[in-house]
C-alpha cells in the first residue's frame, strides 16, 4: 500500500465537487437558456450530495503535511457542502428569474467551494494559499456577473483590489514564515533566534485571514461587496468563505501557546471588540437585507474571533462557525426566492409581508434569523452560549458580558427583518415558488439547524 493511500479518500469530497464543476461547465454550451437553470443546478446538487456521502469514507487523521482531516473538519466540510447546495439552489432561482443567458455560475460556485474545502483541510501555507485564491477568484466573477449593475461593479472592484492586496500580504507573511522556519507547514517551529521573524510572518497571515473573514478593522469591503453581489452569492460567500478563513485562522492560532506570540491574544481581543461593536450598531441602521447581513457577518466574525481565545480542545468555535454559516446561507437563499432581482429588491420595504404569502420560505428564514439572533432554542443560542461560557471561564468576564449585550443589540435587527416579513403588506404580497431544489435544500438546511439544536457537538 502506498504511504499516502488515504490521501484519496480524504480529498474525495473536494474532487467530487470539482468534478461537478467540470461536468456542469462541459454541459453548459449544449443547453438552452431555459433548461440551463433547471438542469445544471440539479447536476451540481447531485455532485454536492455525492460529496457529502463520500465524507463517510474519510479517514480521520493527519495526512502527510498538507491536508489534515478529523471529525471537526468532517463536520465543517459537511456544512460547506450544505451552504454550497443552498447557494446553488438560490442561484438557480435568481438566474431563472433574470432569464440569465449563461450557466457558468454553477461551475464557478462549485470551484469556489472547492477552494473553501481546501482551506478547511490545509495545514500548509501553500495549500492554504491555493485554497484561498481558488475560493476567491470564482467569487470575484460571481459578484461581477451582472455587468450592468453599478452596485455589482462597485462591489467587485472593492473586493478584487483589496482581496489581491491581502493575497499579497498573505504571501509576504508566508515568505517570512518560511524564512523563519524553513518549512511551509502551519505547525513549523521557528529556527533558533528567528522567533520574531516567524511572529511577523504569522501576524501577516493572520491579518489576511481576518480580512477574508470580514472581521473589523478589515471589514471595509464587506458591506459593498455583499450588497453588490446577487443575493444567493452573498449567502454563499458569507458562509463558505467564513468557514474557510476562520478554520485556517484557528489552525494557525494554535501557535499562540509559544511565548514569542504573547501579544497575539491582545490583537485578537481588539479585533473581536471592534467587530462586535461595528457589526451590531452599524447593522441596526441598515434598511436592506444584504447590507444587514453584511454587518451581521462582521459581528459574527467578532464572536468567532473571540472563540479563538478558548482553550485548545474546545469545539465551541467550529460549532459556532457551522451554525452561523448555515443560518446565514439559509436566510439569503430564502430571500433569493422572496426578493426580486433588481438592485433595491432586498429593501425592507419591498420584503414587507412576503412571509405571509409564502409561509414555508418565511418560516425557514425566521428560524434562521432566530438562530442568528442567538435566541433559544435554536442552535445559534447554543453556539453563542458555548462561546461566551468558554470566554467567561477563561477569565475574560467583561468580554463575555460585552458579547451578551451585543447579542441583544444585534437581535434588534434580526427581529426587525423577521417581523417585517410577517407584517401586513398593505396590498397582497406576491406568491413565489422558488423551485423544488430551493425548497428541498431549505428543508435540509433548516433540518440541519434543528439537528444541531438537539445534538450540539459541544
Amino acid at each position, binding site marked *: 500500500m502506498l504511504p499516502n493511500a488515504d490521501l484519496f479518500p480524504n480529498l474525495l469530497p473536494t474532487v467530487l465537487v470539482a468534478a461537478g464543476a467540470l461536468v456542469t461547465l462541459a454541459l453548459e454550451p449544449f443547453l438552452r437558456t431555459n433548461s440551463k437553470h433547471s438542469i445544471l443546478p440539479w447536476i451540481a446538487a447531485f455532485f454536492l450530495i455525492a460529496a457529502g456521502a463520500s465524507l463517510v469514507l474519510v479517514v480521520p487523521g493527519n495526512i502527510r503535511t498538507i491536508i489534515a482531516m478529523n471529525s471537526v473538519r468532517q463536520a465543517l466540510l459537511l456544512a460547506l457542502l450544505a451552504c454550497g447546495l443552498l447557494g446553488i439552489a438560490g442561484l438557480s432561482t435568481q438566474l431563472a428569474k433574470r432569464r440569465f443567458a449563461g450557466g457558468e455560475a454553477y461551475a464557478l460556485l462549485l470551484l469556489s467551494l472547492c477552494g473553501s474545502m481546501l482551506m478547511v483541510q490545509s495545514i500548509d501555507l501553500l495549500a492554504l494559499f491555493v485554497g484561498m485564491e481558488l475560493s476567491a477568484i470564482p467569487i470575484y466573477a460571481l459578484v461581477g456577473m451582472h455587468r450592468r449593475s453599478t452596485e455589482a461593479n462597485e462591489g467587485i472592484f472593492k473586493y478584487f483590489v483589496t482581496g489581491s492586496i491581502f493575497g499579497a500580504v498573505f504571501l509576504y507573511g508566508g515568505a517570512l514564515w518560511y524564512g523563519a522556519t524553513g518549512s511551509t507547514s502551519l505547525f513549523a517551529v521557528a529556527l533558533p533566534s528567528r522567533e520574531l521573524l516567524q511572529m511577523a510572518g504569522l501576524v501577516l497571515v493572520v491579518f489576511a485571514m481576518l480580512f477574508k473573514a470580514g472581521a473589523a478593522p478589515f471589514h471595509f469591503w464587506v458591506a459593498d461587496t455583499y450588497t453588490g453581489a446577487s443575493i444567493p452569492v452573498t449567502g454563499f460567500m458569507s458562509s463558505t468563505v467564513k468557514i474557510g478563513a476562520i478554520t485556517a485562522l484557528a489552525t494557525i492560532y494554535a501557535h499562540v501557546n509559544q511565548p514569542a506570540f504573547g501579544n497575539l491574544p491582545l490583537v485578537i481581543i481588539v479585533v473581536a471588540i471592534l467587530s462586535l461593536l461595528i457589526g451590531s450598531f452599524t447593522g441596526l441602521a441598515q434598511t436592506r437585507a444584504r447590507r444587514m447581513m453584511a454587518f451581521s457577518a462582521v459581528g459574527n466574525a467578532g464572536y468567532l474571533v473571540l472563540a479563538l481565545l478558548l482553550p485548545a480542545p474546545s469545539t465551541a468555535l467550529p460549532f459556532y462557525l457551522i451554525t452561523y454559516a448555515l443560518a446565514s446561507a439559509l436566510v439569503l437563499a430564502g430571500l433569493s426566492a422572496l426578493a426580486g432581482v433588481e438592485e433595491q429588491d432586498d429593501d425592507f420595504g419591498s420584503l414587507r409581508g412576503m412571509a405571509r404569502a409564502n409561509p414555508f420560505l418565511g418560516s425557514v428564514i425566521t428560524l434562521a434569523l432566530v438562530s442568528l439572533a442567538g435566541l*433559544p432554542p435554536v442552535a445559534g443560542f447554543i453556539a453563542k452560549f458555548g462561546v461566551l461560557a468558554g470566554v467567561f471561564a477563561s477569565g475574560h468576564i467583561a468580554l463575555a458580558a460585552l458579547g451578551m449585550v451585543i447579542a441583544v443589540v444585534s437581535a434588534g435587527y434580526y427581529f426587525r427583518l423577521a417581523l417585517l416579513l410577517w407584517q401586513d403588506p398593505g396590498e397582497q404580497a406576491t406568491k413565489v415558488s422558488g423551485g423544488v431544489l430551493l425548497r428541498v435544500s431549505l428543508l435540509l438546511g433548516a433540518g440541519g439547524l434543528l439537528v444541531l439544536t438537539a445534538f*450540539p457537538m459541544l
Partner: protein
Amino acid sequence: MTIEAILLNATWILPILTVLMVIPVSRSNSFLIKMIHAGSALVNVLIAGFLTWKVFAISAAAGIPAGNKPLLNFVTDLPWMQMLNVRFITGVDALSILMILLTSVVVFTGILATWNIDKQDKEFFALAQILSAGVFGVFMAFDLVTFFVFYELEALAMYLMIANWGSGRKDYGGKKLTLYLMLGSAMILVTILGLYFVSGTESFDIRVLADIKFPMDFQMWAFPVMFLGFAVSSSLFPFHNWSPDGHSSAPTAVSMLAAGVMMKMGTYGCLRVAMYLMPEGARFWMPWIVILVAFNVVFAAFIAIRHRDLKYITAYSSIGHLGLIVLGLCAMTYIGIKGAALQMISHGFLTALFFSTIGMIYSRTHTRMIDEMGGIMKTVPFLGVGFVIAGFAGLGLPGLSGFVAEATIFIGSFQNESTLMRLVTVLAILGVTTTAVYVLRAANTMLHGPITNPHFEHLPASTLPEKITVVLLVGCLLGMGLFPGWISSMLDTSLTPISVNVLRGTP
C-alpha cells in the same frame, strides 16, 4: 424512561407536533385547524391531570421528604452539550405538576376563548402552541440551561403574537415586551453562568447546585441580578409597564397565557432557582425588594381605579396580584412561600377567566371602555356572571381560590417580624380592598343598570366553546377555594424541602 416520563415530555412535544400536523391543512378549513389545536390542548389537560393525580398519590404515600430536595418524579436525564455538561433534565415535583396542570387548562381555555379569531388563525394557534411548549418546558426543567431555553422559546412566541395580532399600539406593545424580556433574560443568563462556574461542580443541574453554599460576595450581586431578571416577566415595579400595554394590545388567548402562566414563570423562577440556590443573598435583598412590592400592590390598585379600559384594569390588577406573590416570597417564612405558590396557581385561573370573559364581551360590544357599556348582564348573563366571579376571586372573596392564597400570603408575611415587612403587609391588605373598588365599579357600570346602547340589546348568546371555557375555569376557582386541603398538602411535599434551603440560617 418510564411511561410517565414520556407523557410528561409529551406535554411540550405535543404542541410542536400539532403545529407540524396543521401545516398541510388548508387555510380555508379553519374549523379543522381549530379542532386539531383544541384536541391536542385537551389531550394535554388530560395528561397533566393524570400526572397530577399520580404525583398526588406518590407524594401522599411518600410523605414529606427529608433534606433539601423535593421528590422529583418522572425524571428524564439526557446529555445535551457535553463540553459544558449541559443536560436535558425534566421532571416534576408537586409544585411543577400543579403549574403544568394550570398551564394546560389555560392553554385549552385560551384556544376555546379565541375560537372566533378571524385574522390568520392558522399562524395564531401555531404560535400559541409553541408558546405553551415553552411554558410547559420551563415548569418541568431541572437543568438551568434547559430551563433557560424553554424560558426564551416562550418570549419569542409571545413577541410574534403581540406584534402580529394585537389591537391598538401593537408594535409598540410588542417591542416593549420583547426588549424588557430580552434584558431580563440576559440578566438571568449571566447569573446562570455565574452559578455554574462559581459552584465548581461543572453542572447546571438544580439538584446538584442546591447542595452548594455559594459564597456571600457572589450571592450579593448574583441574587439581585437574577431576581430582577425574573421580575421583568412577572412585572415587578419598575419593570411592570410592559404589561398594561402588552395586554391591552394582545388578543385574548395571549393575554390569558401572558397573565395566567407567563408571569408566573418569573415568580416560579424566583422561587425555584434564585431563592432556592441563593438564600443568603435573598435574605439580604428581600427588605429592598419588598419596597418595590409595596409599589406593585398599592400603586397598581390605584392606577386600576383610574382606568376605564377593561384590559388595562385587569392588567393592573394582575400586577397587583403578582406583587402579592412576590410579597409572599419576600416574607422568607414557610407560610409566605406556600401562599405565594397557592397564589401562582389561583391567579392563573382567575386571570384567565378575567381575560377570557373580557375578550368575549369585547367581541360582542366592540368596546372595552366600561363607561360605554351598561346592562350587559341582561343580554349576556352567562358572561356577566363569569366576569363577576373572576372579580370576586380577585378581591379575595372566601370560597374562591383567591381568598385561600391571599390569606396565606398575609399570614406568612406578617409572621416576618421586621417592621417594614409588617407595614407592607398592612398596605397590601388595604390594596385588596382597593381591588374591591375597581372590580365592583366595573361590574356595576358595565353589567347592571339600563342598557345604554341599543346595539347591546341583541348581543349574540354565548357559544359552546365560551361556555366550556367559563365553566372549566370557574370550576377550578371553586375547587381550589372550597377544597384547598389537597393542593395544600401536596404542595407541602415540594415546598418543605425547598424551604429547607431558602430558610437555612434563619433564626
